[in-house]
């Protein structure tokens, strides 16, 4: 570990270089992180208040709980309530409100809802309870999807006919492309955060701080299409304030130098190629499929579907579930928050009707959501 004194000096150097680069750009720039862990780390460390005044860091659709569409959440709650079903989910999803309540409320009403730590825990439950239909809510980005693939293969190996998966996985790069296809480099003059409502085109960003743990799986090179198709620089960064500051400073330099490239500043955990075994397993079980995101709507190839050999494990087909798109909770601006179009404090319900104890939207439910991060760490900063 670096000594604190050294770190403080290093941080001061990074900030100085960053300010100089920002001054040379001579216009406001905005970067987007697409990782819930970055969202929390930035707020907890006070990074927003250290940045050059012309630089804005937006939180994009990086919290898997927050981007899960309202229709998918309604589908989970509906399925959890069916008789004979044991519904397994990661803990973060439990309190997200659907139109007929949350999974937690379904459990209070008698549904068999279990929090699992690992997808394999759900397979174990299915093996131990052959008379019950065990459904696993497969939510998350590429960090989590390989685990779902392993669980499905394990269920197949054990010949379990009472295990299935409600797939709501998301792929981050297609979402980044969808966001940036409306954003041209340099298109952020005037600052994006004042943009108000409107479409994707109004989210002007100049580059992405790429998600470190997704990148462990997909590799730094997975972000190349964002550079090639949209001309936006991408920097993979770790989660320490210094690492994030270095990443953002580097992005500012790349904008200044008009040099859109992918750079990996988190080589401690991220390689160029990613985790080959995880990618292989994911590819054996899943194929790219369209997916519906909260705030972004349907995006081609941004989700995962089960390959033909694994269709038997599709819970939606097994239980005749047809998730429909449903409106977000009345007054909740999670969609705008996810897209960086408004700040959590711009929502009339923030801190009043909506708090982490009584959340209204997923951004306040999730420990990685922008509203909860702002509520915990951001009050008074802006």
């Amino acid at each position, binding site marked *: *570990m*670096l000594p604190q004194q050294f770190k403080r000096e290093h941080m001061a150097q990074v900030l100085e270089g960053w300010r100089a680069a920002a001054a040379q750009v001579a216009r406001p720039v905005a970067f987007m992180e697409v*990782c*819930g*862990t970055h969202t929390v*780390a930035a707020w*907890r460390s006070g990074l927003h208040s250290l940045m050059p005044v012309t630089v804005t860091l937006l939180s994009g659709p*990086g*919290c*898997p*709980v927050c981007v899960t569409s309202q229709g998918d959440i309604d589908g989970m709650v509906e399925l959890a309530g069916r008789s004979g079903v044991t519904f397994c989910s*990661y*803990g*973060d999803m439990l309190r997200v409100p659907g139109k007929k309540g949350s999974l937690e409320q379904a459990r209070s009403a008698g549904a068999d809802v279990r929090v699992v*730590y*690992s*997808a*394999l*825990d759900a397979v174990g439950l299915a093996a131990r309870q052959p008379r019950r239909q065990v459904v696993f809510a497969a*939510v*998350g*980005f590429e*960090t*989590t999807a*390989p*685990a779902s693939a*392993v669980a499905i293969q394990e269920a197949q190996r054990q010949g379990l006919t009472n295990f299935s998966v409600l797939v709501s996985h998301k792929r981050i790069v297609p979402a980044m492309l969808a966001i940036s296809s409306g954003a041209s480099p340099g298109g952020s003059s005037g600052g994006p955060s004042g943009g108000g409502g409107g479409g994707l085109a109004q989210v002007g960003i100049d580059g992405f701080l790429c*998600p470190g*743990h*997704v990148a*462990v*799986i997909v590799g730094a090179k997975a972000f190349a299409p964002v550079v090639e198709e949209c001309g936006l620089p991408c920097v993979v960064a*770790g*989660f*320490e304030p210094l*690492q994030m500051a270095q990443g953002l400073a580097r992005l500012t330099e790349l904008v200044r130098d008009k040099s859109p490239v992918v750079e990996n500043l988190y080589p*401690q*955990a991220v390689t160029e190629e990613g*985790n080959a*075994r*995880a990618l292989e*397993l994911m590819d054996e079980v899943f194929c790219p499929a369209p997916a519906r995101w909260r705030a972004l709507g349907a995006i081609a190839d941004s989700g995962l579907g089960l390959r033909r050999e694994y269709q038997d494990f599709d819970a939606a087909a097994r239980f005749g579930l047809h998730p429909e798109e449903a409106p977000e909770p009345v007054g909740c601006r999670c969609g705008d928050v996810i897209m960086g179009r408004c700040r959590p404090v711009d929502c009339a319900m923030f801190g009043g009707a909506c708090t982490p104890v009584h959340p209204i939207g997923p951004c306040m439910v*999730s420990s*990685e959501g922008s509203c909860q991060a702002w509520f915990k760490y951001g009050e008074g900063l802006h």
Partner: protein
Amino acid sequence: MCLAIPAKVVRLEDEGLAVVDLHGASLRVCTALAPETEAGEWVLVHAGFVIQRLAEAEVAEIWEALGQSDPSERGEGSAAAAN
């Protein structure tokens, strides 16, 4: 949900499983995504799976980045949820 946490591998078990020490708590994880995992090394654990092997020198920095003190300097702690 994308949070991954460093843990030290205590021992390997059958069927692609390993027991890791996660901030003082003992946890059984799956090594199917990193089959070369060895006992005694540090790994990144996410949702019950090893997703990456780590060099020891990198661990303290990652811990610190996650806002926790380095467990090797504390010798006690509670299980951290990786979701």
